[in-house]
């Protein structure tokens, strides 16, 4: 079958791929910039790159959020030179649990949950994922547990910030033809 740019199916898929590539690129850039910024502690980062996954989840679908986050983590690690280092596995475990929490909560709660709720759950999921990774791979010390409430508190704060930014961005981007047409065609 000959397909051209006029083929609506193909156009749809191409559009989706382009949007995802753009999103992944923005996420990787944010990831790298955040890595370069000085941080008060190695534990505390805002995780602005997750914002892009939030946009993907709300404007496109859950699969898009997965592709953005996984691409970002792997390509980001390659870019920063931390691929397959302990840092990478921390980032990966956090990212997987975070994305699971975000897509899962959106699927379960649907329209009742907004960007802020999803973002907060994702941020807390990221912390928990990292915590489990630290616990099993790096340090197994009881003192770590007393650190957990503080870490979760920080991540709720970070999640709130990201979620609010995302909710403004979603409001202004929603209804853009690129997203309405990239939707529904799961690739």
């Amino acid at each position, binding site marked *: 079958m000959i397909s051209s740019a006029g083929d609506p199916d193909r156009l749809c898929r191409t559009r989706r791929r382009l949007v995802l590539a753009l999103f992944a690129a923005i996420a990787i850039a944010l990831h790298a910039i955040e890595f370069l910024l000085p941080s008060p502690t190695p534990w505390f980062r805002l995780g602005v790159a997750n914002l892009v996954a939030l946009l993907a989840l709300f404007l496109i679908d859950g699969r898009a959020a997965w592709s953005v986050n996984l691409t970002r983590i792997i390509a980001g690690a390659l870019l920063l030179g931390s691929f397959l280092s302990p840092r990478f596995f921390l980032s990966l475990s956090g990212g997987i649990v975070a994305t699971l929490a975000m897509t899962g909560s959106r699927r379960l709660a649907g329209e*009742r949950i907004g960007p802020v*709720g999803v973002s*907060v759950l994702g941020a807390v999921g990221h912390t928990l994922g990292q915590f489990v990774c630290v616990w099993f791979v790096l340090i197994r010390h009881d003192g770590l547990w007393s650190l957990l409430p*503080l870490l979760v*508190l920080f991540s709720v704060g970070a999640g709130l910030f990201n979620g609010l930014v995302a909710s403004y961005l979603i409001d202004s981007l929603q209804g853009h033809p690129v997203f309405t047409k990239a939707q529904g065609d799961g690739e």
Partner: protein
Amino acid sequence: MAVTRLWARLTRLDRAIVLSLLGLCLVGMLRTRSTGPGDWLIVERSGDIVFRARLGSDQSARLSGPIGETLLIVQDGRVRVESSPCRDKVCIGMGEIRFPGELLACVPNRILITIPGVRPEGEVGYDLLSR
């Protein structure tokens, strides 16, 4: 004003999630503090337990490490490092500890002083798998 406008962007479920997580954090933080002072202290050097003592009885201990002797003082149920051969004296600067989960560490001298959680006889709770 600005806060209420931001708050209005949250759905009811969002608010429930945020508030319940904040509540959980608060409970968690209070719990770690309310366990009361610990009963035991253990000293590890390069991963091996080299010294154990009750916090109830005042005493001092000299712990030898790779770069010299670290003097440990137990007084009124609190532990502190009195003197250390290391350069930066971070271990002395860490002050006193008394609650389970707290620790003092002298990295140059490879000494780690911890107060374990409430377990009988200060045994470390490793299981077969984690060992």
